[in-house]
């Protein structure tokens, strides 16, 4: 690793170094001591600058002399410090109170200056003002309003980024992948907005430190917990309630954050079910729990413990007791994720930072059906899961203000158990694993190393370049690839730049799922094997970015082209498949093409904020054995996608939010004609034909939502009443279309919409 670093550092055209000083340290929230990610650190002339990393650390190497260094962050008061010699400092930024109107509001790094493209930081405060279904704020749903990101079915949180499927998104929670992000078949994501500190979406130009997925990286960080005071917030909505509590365990040294959420429709309906069917209980609920502890060992060491668990449960219980018998039956279907990580930050020197992490993630779904009486006992259990154990080390070396080097390594062991079936009957137990050779544990290993450098070539040109090399093993099959990554910007003037990027990505995991966009819990993750190779994608993008000097307004536009190879597609369309023969039931060697044009115009601060996004895109697939080998549109090929998001604080205690989205209808198959066929057993039979794959379109999708927040501040308590109206003009957007025959024999097509206008109210209190 040292040799690699040495090579990197020597081959680059470094300028002859004059005597320099190094300013390094951490940037924190003034009161909570929570570290701030993405704070812009720069000198007054804007010649030298950097950004705090995901743990709030920065290091700035500048020529010796007196420098006024500015620390700016969106929503915080700018801090300015003077330095004449090297120093290690902790900067504390004060959050802007809405009453402080005179304070200069400045932004974090401006889009035009960053070499990174296709990247959007999600403002969680703004997310909470956006209208939401039943008032349940969702960070993934907010991402669907961004250009290049499309939603799947109505109200689904599935993300289709630049032509990729939901399985092609690397979704990280505190650095740990989360495999299934859906609650309630995708209506909600598993991420509780109250527990989230920051979220970043990367659609292209991936830095070398990321790998393993083709289409996007969604990096979500949980709140760390206030180091000095206890805070809490809770909310009650129509279908769910949640609470979050954070505070110090040892003041200024150890803090915690805990957040929990649960729906309660099942509890509310229970009395009615019990009365209508005595002895019966049935229902559905979901819940999740976020927990984080962080401890400072000093200025140079910090330890983070993160834990996340979520579950969705359908259940049914019935018991009938008579003097002579006692019969009971139970059934449930449950699925959920469990993730955990231990991360240790250490400052090796004022220029050298390391984060070492041990990670664990597991997604499991299972079902259990049992019937029991005095003389009969039957239990059927189904289980499927994927489980990862990971170790990684990420280093950052800030050589000088022109070179910010990152390098590291990551090892992941994937354990797949696509199916486990067990039947227990009376006193006899049959294990189908052994009897029928059902799939047992499949193990694969993934290892990668990377190195990248953020290189300031000149005052106008900045380039991020790197290499990502990975090795993958499944049984006796090995795959490896070298993936170059490069992105850069060229400043046209102080406010605008042009950008270019290229990235190659490889993915070793496949998701076998239904093609209809419904996130079923039974969707299976399976490994690349000797028969099913890993998927590969090459993406190139070019763009233009403009931001005002105070970064209040931003405009960016990008064009991209992505070619995907070795895609797979499940042939028969069912998500509920036999895991034993999945390799013979998928089509391999698929090609995909996605290209388009994106526009994003934002107003990022002030009483009114929001954005307008537009995407023109084309998204096609081709498999030798599908659609008779012809190219066909991907189901979520949307030619036009438009979104409008606006929030306005029209009084001190009131703000409103509204959104409007429009998208070309998704592609679908419909019966087109009929013919006779000859069956394999030699009989003639009439069959309906659909024509080419995905050759029809749903009607265009559009919807408007509005919300009103009323804030009541009393002493230490901040209360908020939220009224939201989803689908305010009651647009009946197509969820599915089916063929029907009228009484006179005419064939017609009918559509079913999922949600009409849905008003909701929720109450939130924070202290």
């Amino acid at each position, binding site marked *: 690793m040292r040799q690699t670093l040495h090579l990197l550092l020597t081959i680059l055209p470094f300028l002859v170094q004059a005597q320099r000083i190094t300013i390094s340290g951490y940037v924190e929230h003034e009161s909570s001591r929570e570290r701030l990610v993405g704070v812009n650190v720069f000198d007054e002339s804007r010649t030298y600058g950097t950004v705090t990393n995901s743990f709030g650390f920065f290091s700035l190497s500048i020529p010796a002399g007196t420098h006024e260094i500015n620390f700016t962050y969106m929503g915080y008061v700018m801090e300015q410090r003077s330095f004449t010699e090297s120093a290690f400092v902790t900067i504390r930024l004060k959050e802007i109170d809405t009453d402080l109107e005179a304070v200069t509001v400045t932004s974090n790094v401006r889009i035009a200056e960053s070499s990174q493209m296709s990247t959007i930081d999600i403002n969680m405060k703004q997310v909470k003002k956006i209208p939401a279904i039943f008032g349940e704020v969702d960070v993934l749903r907010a991402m669907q309003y961004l250009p290049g990101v499309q939603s799947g079915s109505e109200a689904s949180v599935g993300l289709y980024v630049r032509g990729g499927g939901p399985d092609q998104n690397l979704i990280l929670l505190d650095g740990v992948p989360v495999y299934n992000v859906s609650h309630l078949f995708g209506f909600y994501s598993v991420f509780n907005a109250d527990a989230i500190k920051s979220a970043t979406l990367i659609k292209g130009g991936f830095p070398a430190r990321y790998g393993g997925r083709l289409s996007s990286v969604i990096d979500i960080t949980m709140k760390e917990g206030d180091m000095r005071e206890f805070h809490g917030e809770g909310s009650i909505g129509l279908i769910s309630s949640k609470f979050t509590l954070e505070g110090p365990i040892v003041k200024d040294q150890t803090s915690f954050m805990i957040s929990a959420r649960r729906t309660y429709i099942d509890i509310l309906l229970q009395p009615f079910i019990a009365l209508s069917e005595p002895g019966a209980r049935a229902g559905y609920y979901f819940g999740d729990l976020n927990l984080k502890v962080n401890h400072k060992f000093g200025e140079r060491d910090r330890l983070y413990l993160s834990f996340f668990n979520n579950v969705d449960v359908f259940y049914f219980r019935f018991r009938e007791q008579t003097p002579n018998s006692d019969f009971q039956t139970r059934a449930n279907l449950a699925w959920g994720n469990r993730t955990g990580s231990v991360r240790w930050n250490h400052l090796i020197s004022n220029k050298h930072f390391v984060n070492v992490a041990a990670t664990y993630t597991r997604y499991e779904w299972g079902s259990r059906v049992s019937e029991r009486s005095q003389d009969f006992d039957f239990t059927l259990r189904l289980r499927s899961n994927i489980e990862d154990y990971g170790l990684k080390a990420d280093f950052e070396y800030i050589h000088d203000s022109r070179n910010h080097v990152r390098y590291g390594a990551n090892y992941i062991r994937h354990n797949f158990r696509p199916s486990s079936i067990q039947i227990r009957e009376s006193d006899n137990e049959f294990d189908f694993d052994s009897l*029928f050779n059902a799939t047992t544990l499949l193990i694969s290993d993934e290892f990668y190393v990377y190195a990248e450098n953020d290189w300031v070539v000149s005052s106008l040109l900045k380039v991020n370049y790197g290499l990502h090399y990975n090795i993958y093993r499944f049984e006796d099959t090995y795959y490896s690839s070298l993936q170059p990554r490069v992105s850069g910007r060229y400043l046209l003037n102080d406010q605008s730049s042009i950008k270019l990027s290229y990235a190659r990505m490889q993915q070793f995991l496949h998701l076998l799922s239904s093609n209809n966009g419904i996130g079923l819990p039974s969707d299976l993750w399976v490994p690349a094997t000797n028969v099913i190779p890993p998927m590969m994608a090459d993406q190139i993008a070019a763009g233009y970015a403009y931001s005002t000097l105070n970064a209040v307004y931003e405009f960016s536009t990008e064009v991209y082209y992505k070619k995907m190879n070795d895609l797979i597609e499940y042939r028969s369309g069912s998500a509920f498949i036999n895991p034993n*023969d999945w390799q013979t039931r998928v089509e391999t060697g698929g090609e995909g093409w996605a290209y388009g044009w994106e526009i994003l115009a934002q107003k990022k601060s002030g009483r009114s904020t929001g954005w307008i996004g537009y995407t023109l895109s084309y998204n096609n697939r081709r498999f030798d054995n599908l659609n008779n080998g012809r190219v066909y549109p991907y189901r979520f090929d949307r030619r036009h996608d438009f979104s409008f998001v606006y929030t306005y604080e029209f009084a001190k205690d009131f703000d409103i939010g509204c959104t409007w989205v429009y998208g070309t209808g998704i592609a679908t198959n*419909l019966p*087109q004609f009929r*013919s006779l066929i*000859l069956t394999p057993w030699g009989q003639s039979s009439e069959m309906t034909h659909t024509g080419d794959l995905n050759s029809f379109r749903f009607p265009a999708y559009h919807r408007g939502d509005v919300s009103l927040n009323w804030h009541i501040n009393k002493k230490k308590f901040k209360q908020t009443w939220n009224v939201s109206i989803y689908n305010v003009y009651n647009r009946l957007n197509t969820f599915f279309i089916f063929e029907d025959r009228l009484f006179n024999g005419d064939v017609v097509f009918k559509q079913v919409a*999922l949600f009409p206008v849905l008003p909701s109210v929720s109450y939130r209190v924070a202290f």
Partner: protein
Amino acid sequence: MKNLSQSSQALPLSNTSNNSFANLSLKVIGLGLIGIIASCTQIIEIDIPAHEPQWVLNGFIIADENDVDEEKIINFPNEFLVSRSQSIFERNNIEPVDNARIFITDGNGNSIATSQAGSQGPYRPLANYQANQTYRVRSEMPNGDEGPSIQLKTPKKIDVTSSSIREGSRQSIISLSFNDPADEENFYFIGLIQEYIDTLWNGDVFRDFGSVYFNILHPDFSSYYESDPFFPNESTNKGVLSDRSFNGQSLSLEIRIDDSWWGGERNRGDYYVVLVSMGKDMHQFMLSFYENWYNDFGPFSEPSPFFFNVENGLGTVVSGTRSIIHIK
């Protein structure tokens, strides 16, 4: 006691009241849900391009490697079917076309057979197809129009090297070995039939052949049926074996038969393994046939286009080479 008595009298009334309330609430909720769903369902206009009716030709060209009795051919009879397609909006049933003509020539253009169907029946050209040979099928429609046509090649001969059976009280196992040609990706249709012998009321002996359910534990074997998640190793009476993992090599298979599946009312005779080497077109046809056959075209179904391979019309004519192995 008075209070208790009052309570005990009041309780049923209260329960009745609660029940009424609950039932009423459930009805209101139910009606509300129905109302929401009904209000969210509407007939829509969809611009489906008008379908121009076309001639349709379907059929099989199967080269039988050994002389087989016709009653053993449960699948893939050497037949053709002619019809005409119609739009989804048409109300009438589709009838076979029974006065077209089918012409079959070999690779050199020599006529092999000509066939004209009887009423409503399939076309059965009297041709003796050979393995690894090219054939051209041409059709002429009743109005004199040139109908669909296709040229195709039968796969190579299947080189079966050994076969045997081990019979147990509840399970029998057939062992079968054959060589897979190395130069192309091959697909094998595997079926199992058995002879049944019945004695009729008048003492006559009646012989019949029927499909038998079996299991093949090989990673490249899959049933044509939709898998049952609860019984992932379900039996099948037909399936496909891809040579992905044994291309160009000899393969030994074990076909497991659960004898307890059948009752003992009929006397069972010998087994016959039906092994058909399928051309790529035939494999495509089988996949698309089963995908569409079990498709209800419901809102969440994912139909794929039916595999058509003929020119100048619609339809599927596929070729295979069949070996029926008598297991003694």
